[in-house]
Every structure is written in C-alpha cells, then in structure tokens.
C-alpha cells in the first residue's frame, strides 16, 4: 500500500533522514497499520459531521494587557547554539557556514 518512493517522499515532508534499514522496514510496517486504519471505512459516515473538538467551547478572549515575557537570555539558555540574542543555525544553502 505504501511503497519505498512514498516512504522517501513522506520522510522528506517530515524532515527525517531514514537509514537504509528503516527505508526497507517502513513500507510493510506502515502498510499493515494503514490496512487496519482503513477498517473505519466499514462505518456508514453519510452526513456525519467531523469532530474537531470534543467539548462545546467558544473562544473566550482576555483583555490584551501587556505584561513582561520570559527574558530573552532565559529562552535562549537551552539552545544548542545562539548568537546576538537569537538562535543560531547553519546556513540554509550549501555546506559550511
């Protein structure tokens, strides 16, 4: 049901590198799960509304009052790399930075 090319496509969408072993294992594993998932098509769903939220809630808006946020240094503390008050990442283009 899911073949190797689809696995590679989805892995790219999900931004996950897969090892050769994982690429070999995923198609049968995911197909078996999806086969079970598709048993839900046995249910007559004609005219049934989808549930996106289980509790009937209406958004309640609070007053927009400014208040101090977490200090920038604190938010950056756990980052693997930071510089000039921001998160630092490798260059989007090519190798090296």
């Amino acid at each position, binding site marked *: 049901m899911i073949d190797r090319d689809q696995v590679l496509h989805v892995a790219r*969408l*999900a931004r996950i590198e897969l090892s050769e072993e994982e690429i070999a294992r995923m198609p049968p594993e995911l197909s078996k799960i999806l086969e079970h998932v598709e048993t839900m098509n046995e249910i007559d769903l004609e005219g049934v*509304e989808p549930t*996106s939220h289980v509790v009937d*809630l209406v958004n309640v808006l609070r007053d927009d009052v400014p208040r101090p946020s977490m200090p920038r240094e604190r938010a950056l503390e756990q*980052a693997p790399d930071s510089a000039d008050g921001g998160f630092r990442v*490798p260059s989007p283009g*090519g190798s090296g930075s």
Partner: protein
Amino acid sequence: MSDDLLDLTAAQQAQRIAAGEVSGEEVFDFWRERAAADELGAYLWVAEENRGGTLPPVAVKDLFCVEGVPSAAGSRILEGYRPPYSATTVRNLRAAGAQVLGKTNQDEFAMGSSTENSGYGPVQNPWDRTRVPGGSSGGSAAAVAAGSAPWAIGTDTGGSIRQPASLCGVVGMKPTYGAVSRYGMIAFASSLDQCGPLTRDVTDAAILLGHLQGRDPCDSTSLGIPEGVALPSAERLDGLRFGVWGLEEEGVEPGVADAVRATIAKLEELGGAIKEIDLPNARHGIAAYYVIAPAEASANLARYDGVRYGPRDEADGNLTSMYERTRHDGFGDEVKRRIMIGTYALSSGYYEAYYGTAQKVRTKIARDFRAAFEQVDFVVTPTSATVAFELGARTADPLAMYLADYFTVPMPLAGIPAISIPCGLSEGLPVGFQIAGPAFSEPRILDAAYALEQAIGFEGVPVLR
C-alpha cells in the same frame, strides 16, 4: 516511624503531617530514598533538594515541564533539556503542598503501551519483573505499585494512564478533556491529551485530581471540573445503572473476563443495576485513533529540529540536513513510525480519506456513548484485554501493541472521563476494571469507584521492601 509510611495511602500520610506526628521533610526524605533505590527503571530523575510539603511528594511523568529539572518526555531528542518554566499542573500541586519527588520513565512522547519505547530503557512491572508495566505512563504506575512513590501523575491520550494502572494494580484516572490544564505538558496529540492521577486508592485519586483540575488562562481548552472534586464516600450504588461493554470482544483473556464478571456481581450486590450495552462504533476506535493521534503528533513534533533545545547534529553543515539528521538521531522507531503515518495521512490527496474520515468516526463514537448514557449512568469494561505481557512480546508487531488500548481509546476520542481500579488477579497479575461516565461526571465516577473498591478489598500493592 518511617517504615510504616509504606503502608499508608497518601491521604493518611497527609493526615499524619497535619497532626504533627511526622514532618513534611521526614516524609519527603523517606520517599526520596525509596525513589533513589528504585531498581525497576521507573525513574529518570529523583529530587535532590528536600522541599518538605504538607502533602506527600508526587512522582511526575517525564513529559511535564518542571523548571530547571530534566524534562525530556522519554526522548533522546530532548536529552538534557531543563525547561525555563513549570507546567500548570506542577505549579498547582506545589501550591497545594505536594512537591515533585522525581520524573518517571515513559514511552517516548507518550507513544506506546509498554514503556519499552522510552529512549532511556524499559520499566519492569513490580508484580513480575519479566513483564511490562504498561504505558505510556509505565514509570508512574510501577513507582506507585512498587512503593517507590506515594502517588503520581501521568497523561492519557489513548489509555496511557488507565492501561498501566491496570497492569500494575493501581488506580488511574483520565479526566474529561479540558478538566486539567495542558500548559507545560509536552504535547503528543493535543485534542486527546489529558493529565490525571495514578494512586494506590480512589480517595488519593480524588485528592490529587482536586488539586490538578481547574481553568488555566494559559490553556484555552481548559475548563476545570465545574462542581469540583469532593472526597468520595458512597457505600451503596442503589439506583445507579451500569452498562457493560466488551466482555464478548475478541482477545479478552478468560481470567480477565472472570475477574471483571466477579466485579460486576459486586456492583449488583451494592445495589447497582446491570445492563448489557453495545458501542458499535467504539470497536473502530483504534483505527480512528491511529490517524488522529499520529496526525496531531506529526505537527506537534515538528518543533524538535535542533534549533531551540536538545542535541543537534550538523555534520553536513547545511540547515535542512541539520533538521533531518537531528530528527533521525533523536527520535526512536515508534515516534518515527507515527510521524510518518501522521504526515502521510495529512499529505495532499490523503487528508479527507484519512483525517477527515477519522474525525467523523470520532463523532460516531461520541454518539455511541451519548446513546448509552441515556440508558445507563456509567459504562464499565475491562481496562485491558490482557494482564501484563512479557517484555519484548509485542515490540516486533506495532499493531499488536496498538490493540492493547482497545478498551481505553474510545473514551478520549469522545472526550469523556474514565477510571481504572484494580479488581482482582489473573495468573497472579492484576486486572483493571474501567468505569466511564459522561463529560465532567468525575465526582460520580469516583464515588462509584470508591464504593466498589471497598467491596473488592484489593490488597495487591506488591511493595518491594
């Protein structure tokens, strides 16, 4: 003094602290030593500083953010992460006088039913150390069962509190969606995740839930439990109607069915009325769940990319490959599998067939329960079709593992609360009995569970001395 703390419920310990018979610091020290001596793999971190408290300290599932304390949700991708803030639930517990005892092991990002998917090694079941404790809150359940925590909190998305509670012989409750704040709870599937208690008895569960619940401005889906949570006290169940579901389902072990039938007989002895009911769409719960939960997870887990927290792999020096390699290294097999399923189900051309359909099935399951609650006050089922299974028995077959949540998945899909209480043994291992009720019926569920608990007289906590 202190050895008998092991024989007391958390409520009884709190009474002793209040009466001045023992100090909060002594109680904390006692449990910290118990937790530090754990040999089951139940803990990932144990508190170093004694903070005392008017209530016994609480073991907290790893995925709850605790300021300055390792909080990795059982994943290597968050290894070493110490959050700059604490979850609302943790703050509520501290405000009530219960400090954090330690962080408990779990399936990575709460994805699993055996705690074998932890990035930090499995947890053993204290009843039989060759078996799983259930999951994903397996560390919390095992710690309470083994007497290395007086009580604990976990999270339940498809059964992750109730199923391990069942397999470890403790009480576990999943509240109504919205009863407890999700702020600071590392997210798995946001439309399903709920925090709840794992305890030795129903009274402790009610106390803990009372402190956990409440509306939180930081979680716009939170409401709290409108009438609050009183201490359960019911002795009889006269006038209450219990709808039985699931005993005839495929895969229910005979020993589990026997224990559940004996418990149903006790409901009748207490004055309850029994009626067989059907939830025709609930048997498709696992199918719908394995679209909705992975789909939401694939979005929630997009944030783990090596930018803001956790380890990073930038061997190739390019941004995209940094994302891809960091996620390759950091996520375990099951998490990758679910991200793949979820991403596929949400991808162009498949959304309606999978996610759209699953959300309609969700509506049908919620209607099943609504129809049931027109005839009965509660729905009762086995919590798990089986007792604790052997470590490794299902790791090679993801679908077999998923089916472990057959009886627990329909409730979160419908947003309703349910409790699992230990009701007996099969092959020397605990069996859980599940009681579900309509949204925000926690006080009534706890009362019924309390009356039943007294009648069952389960004395199974296999405290490891």
